[in-house]
């Protein structure tokens, strides 16, 4: 009897050990799986992107099929539209986040705004493109840099709202109470105390928003469209405008080898920008914690 009992318990022990080992091996494999893809993607990007890099990328405009050229107009367009998008989106996002954290933390309106904002944060960006098309492009009658910047601004806002709110919530209430006790009106408390205390976090949010829009393609396709030339005059934003992601899309899906190379170079530039921005954001975040 005793022998059988000990045999069963040994079997059970063995089975549990086995299940545990299988579990550990599988989770480790999952992590390796993730890292392998990251290596493949970054590796592929480096191999094809670096060989296509050249100084002319930044000095020449996108070429017609079959000839050499650069990406200068696309880079310029991307930077211009991103800057305008951030300039429009950041104040709105900052104030909306402030409203959620400082004025209406538990109110019903705040609940709705928070909910809608989180939906917008993950909503398909192509739908934003359609919205701006209906709103701006149809009204203006043509594609334009302004429409592209507007679409990007709509993507910036929810990111900034979310991080601003999160960061302001981390500010200890004692700070606000101390400032109020000294007689500061609430807007002074917010401007001079809480925003200052949360500054690093808010900047992190803006950096993440820039990282997000620098690779956005879908909303630009039918707002800024693209432009194979340069037009650096006051009217530039009223015309269709080239952007790096849109150029990558058109060149990569086309049949020409030269354009494929430029697409890879552009992809490398975007990825490098995004990675640098995310690392900067992370450093800022860490600096704040210590």
């Amino acid at each position: 009897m005793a022998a059988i009992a000990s045999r069963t318990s040994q079997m059970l022990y063995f089975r549990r050990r086995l299940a545990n080992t299988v579990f550990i091996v599988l989770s480790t494999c999952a992590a390796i799986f993730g890292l392998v893809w990251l290596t493949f993607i970054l590796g592929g990007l480096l191999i094809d992107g670096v060989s296509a890099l050249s100084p002319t990328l930044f000095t020449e405009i996108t070429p017609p099929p079959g000839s050499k050229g650069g990406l200068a107009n696309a880079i310029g367009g991307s930077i211009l539209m991103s800057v305008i998008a951030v300039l429009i989106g950041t104040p709105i996002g900052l104030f909306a986040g402030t409203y959620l954290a400082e004025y209406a933390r538990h109110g019903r309106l705040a609940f709705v705004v928070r909910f809608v904002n989180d939906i917008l944060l993950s909503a398909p960006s192509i739908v934003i493109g359609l919205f701006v098309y209906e709103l701006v492009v149809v009204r203006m009658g043509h594609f334009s840099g302004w429409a592209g910047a507007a679409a990007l601004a709509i993507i910036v806002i929810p990111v900034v709202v979310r991080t601003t709110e999160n960061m302001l919530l981390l500010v200890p209430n004692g700070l606000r109470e101390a400032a109020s006790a000294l007689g500061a009106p609430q807007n002074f408390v917010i401007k001079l105390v809480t925003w200052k205390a949360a500054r690093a976090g808010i900047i992190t949010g803006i950096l993440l928003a820039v990282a997000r829009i620098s690779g956005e393609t879908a909303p630009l396709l039918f707002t800024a469209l693209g432009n194979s030339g340069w037009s650096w005059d006051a009217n530039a934003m009223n015309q269709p405008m080239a952007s790096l992601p849109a150029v990558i899309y058109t060149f990569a899906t086309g049949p020409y080898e030269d354009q494929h190379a430029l697409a890879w170079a552009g992809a490398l530039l975007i990825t490098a920008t995004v990675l640098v921005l995310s690392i900067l954001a992370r450093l800022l975040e860490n600096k704040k914690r210590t």
Partner: protein
Amino acid sequence: MTDISLSEPSALTARVETARKAGAGDFRFRMMALAAALAVLAIFAGVIVSLIFGSMPAFKEFGFGFITTEVWSPTRERFGALAPIYGTLVTSLIAMIIAVPVGIGIAIFLTDLCPRLLRRPIGIAVELLAGIPSIIYGIWGFFVFAPWFQLHVQEPVATAVADIPVLGTLFGGVTFGIGTFTAGLILSIMILPFISAVTRDVLETVPSVLKEASYGLGATSWEVMWKVCLPFCQTGVVGGAMLALGRALGETMAVTFVIGNAHKIAPSLFAPGTSISASIANEFTEATGDLYRSALIELGLLLFVITFIVLACAQLMLRQMEKGKGK
């Protein structure tokens, strides 16, 4: 106070003036914050209204039959959304089947199994995957992954299963590298970091007392994870997975590159197909005629409604999880 004001009436008016100014500034600031918050709502409402408005011509023409017809013919001006809807759902399903177990596995590895030294670098690396823009996945999938996948996976598999009844239909036929299955695979890599990041965050909310108690009773790591930790944060894990599903459904560029853009429902998963977002991205600027354009906008509306439902469920679940944490 009264003393000063009685002796110096001018000081009082100055003070009243300062207080009034501060109050007015306060009110203005508050209204600006409120206006910005309302702007977020206005954008959301604007998106819905403009999509409904834009899709009216197509809706009037095709009614609810739009959702159930497969035909997509710009030349005859007949449009049906069945093929894109099918493509969106199937690619997302494939992505979820792969990414959910792997993503949870990565999260478990990072919280419980990984040596402390490697925890941060691996965590950061996986999060970097989340930061890579979707067009990069697209161009890489199109030029690097698809040809490799066709040569080393699709062809051998298609030959091997050719004579087996169900598998032969699902994975048979001529292979192109690009297609519905490839799109699903690329999507799974894209949503992997979302799932593992959320799962890792909720796993960290499990009180260590719970884990220590189970280890103290002699449970193995697997038993602690499966019977204690995961049940504890079930809602959060499901919420994270739904968040990732919302991303997968709306993902555009990566899918557009590798799905093949064929407006038909093929029995084989290896065959080219299309998805809602890919159809819009591909055809919108070339769409001639109001009806064509309107049909594409109606596709956008469908996509927005589907993702809204999924994301709303995800938000509610994650909120609930957060509330539970406060208890």
